[in-house]
């Protein structure tokens, strides 16, 4: 019983981490039609900023708060300078962001010297319930993920931001002809998606430690999650991330990890093939 509870918690917490990472990726993919290969590096930057704050002696939470803002701002700038030229061609966008990711990743690698660096969690230790120990920080991550999800949902469903964004993606020239400032929308959305990645990086760095390939590790998993959930909505990728995250944490409990690893992807492709619109077809938010 206790064991099952711990198992459920651990699986859930990994699912939450994947959701957190995919949030930004999903928003950029669904709203802007760009599969951002540099998203992993935005996660990395979030982690790096948190580390920097820690290394400079600032409180860790300060770094964590700063990370989404700094990465978001960077996203805004990058959108205006680079990403903007890619909307016409999704495949070129993949490659362009890939190159961008490469640059960021290798620069960070240079900065941290290719090491694995530890960052302590602001809320450390474990919560003990009887004989069970669950990680306090992982628990915090679950809570924050839920809050962020709710926040995004409200932003996209209760304000006209989501509507403007979808209109812009769907038909930019018509959106302009409806008085929507498409450059601003693109900039804001990309910045928002990047900020979420920055936040994800900040929150997960205590769990996984800082290293240059931190973000890359999650990229393909993230794409698969987005596809499984369904491109075109906010909920879709989130649901997909939940499924993929949970699955990849849960399968090793019942089979050899090496098999589980490949199986997740094979299952995902088969699923997408037979339900190309994803878990949640692109409707609503």
């Amino acid at each position, binding site marked *: 019983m206790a064991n099952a509870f*711990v198992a459920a918690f651990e699986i859930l917490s990994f699912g939450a981490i994947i959701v957190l990472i995919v949030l930004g990726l999903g928003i950029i993919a669904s709203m802007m039609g760009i599969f951002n290969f540099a998203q992993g590096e935005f996660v990395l930057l979030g982690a790096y900023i948190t580390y920097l704050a820690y290394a400079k002696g600032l409180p860790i939470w300060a770094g964590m708060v700063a990370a989404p803002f700094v990465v978001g701002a960077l996203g805004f700038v990058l959108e205006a300078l680079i990403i903007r030229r890619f909307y016409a061609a999704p495949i070129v966008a993949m490659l362009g962001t890939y190159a961008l990711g490469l640059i960021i990743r290798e620069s960070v690698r240079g900065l941290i*010297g290719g090491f694995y660096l530890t960052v302590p969690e602001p809320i450390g230790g474990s919560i003990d319930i009887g004989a069970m120990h669950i990680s306090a920080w992982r628990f915090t991550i679950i809570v924050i993920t839920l809050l962020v999800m709710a926040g995004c949902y409200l932003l996209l469903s209760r304000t006209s931001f989501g509507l403007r964004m979808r209109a812009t993606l769907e038909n930019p020239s018509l959106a302009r002809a409806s008085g929507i400032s498409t450059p601003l929308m693109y900039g804001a959305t990309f910045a928002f998606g990047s900020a979420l990645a920055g936040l994800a990086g900040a929150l997960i760095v205590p769990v996984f430690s800082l290293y240059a390939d931190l973000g890359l590790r999650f990229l393909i998993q993230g794409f698969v999650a987005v596809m499984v959930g369904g491109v075109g909505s906010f909920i879709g990728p989130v649901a997909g991330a939940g499924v993929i995250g949970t699955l990849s944490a849960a399968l090793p409990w019942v089979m050899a*990890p090496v098999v589980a690893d490949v199986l997740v992807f094979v299952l995902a492709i088969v699923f997408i093939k037979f339900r190309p619109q994803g878990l949640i077809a692109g409707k609503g938010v």
Partner: protein
Amino acid sequence: PAPWANAAEGPIKVGIATDLTGPIAYAGNADANVAKMVIKEINTAGGLLGRPLELYIEDTASNESVAVGNVRKLIQRDKVDMVLGGITSSMRNAIKDPIVARGKTLYIYPQLYEGKECTPYLFCTGPTPAQQCDEFIPWLIKNGGKKFALPSANYVWPHTLNVYARKVIEANGGEVVFEEYYPLDQIDFSSTVNRIISNKVDVVFNTVIPPGVGPFFKQLYEAGFLKNGGRLACVYYDENTLNINQAAEIEGLASCLDYFKVLTKENPFDAKIQAAYEKDFPGNFLFAAGSAATGTYRGLKLWEAAVKEAGKVDRDSVAATLDHAKIAEGPGGPAEMVPGKRHCKMKMYTAVAKGGNYEIVGRSDGLVDPKEC
């Protein structure tokens, strides 16, 4: 520059092929630094056979296909007399053929590894499973317990090492509760940790590598493994890897290597090379055993001895003398090649992490035999 006695014959060319970029660049750069240091030292002392040494460094970029291309540069363009390098097993596998078989050059592999590399002209100067397990595992059984878990990254080194380790564990009355392999970049270990806790494992003999190892140790810690008296063991853990986790999460972790920095307190020679290295390369790239820096030092010095004895640098002559080369001083102590085996005898140390630093808790009596080939 010193006046070279045999300057007319031109310099002797030493090739280093190591990972200067990519995920394990920290190790590769340290190795390259060590090579620079050793070559400089030899040159200041008058070179080799009256000829200067010239160093050629190529990046293997943690990418085997780039590596092969760059190694070919060393062989075919620079025509080096010897290549030292490669850190991972897969890198060694990728470049050994271009060096030894197709390139007809001597190859020294400096990293601790799984053993079983018996290619002619390929010499290994890092510790082998026997060297890392024979004394370490009995110590673990005494200072940890009998129930072992072998969580491992899924590649050749852990597989082969585990076969050996299991033999030693069982021979010493221990028991392997489970042995399991994970994809190299797996970073969630909840099911593993759960098995370890629920099976009441005493010693986690870990061969999971970064990036997985950090989260793994953390999860173990959070699940109360250390609190309940569990012992972590990891034979590649050196000063570089200490930073992956917070000190508390790896308190008591035991490792067995040919060198630890704390040895500088007791060995004047270690203190000397450590100081020389830190003076020349004050950055982040540490002189440590797990990243093959010590193996590189040892390899170059052994090769120097061999060339001196042979009096020539052609492959066959040097291979013949390198076969039984010895050095009286090296990181952690003397070292000598085991004749006919192309592996190296060396001293081994067991150390335990305490508050983020190592303490030596055991040392081999003499030089430990690699037991290979």
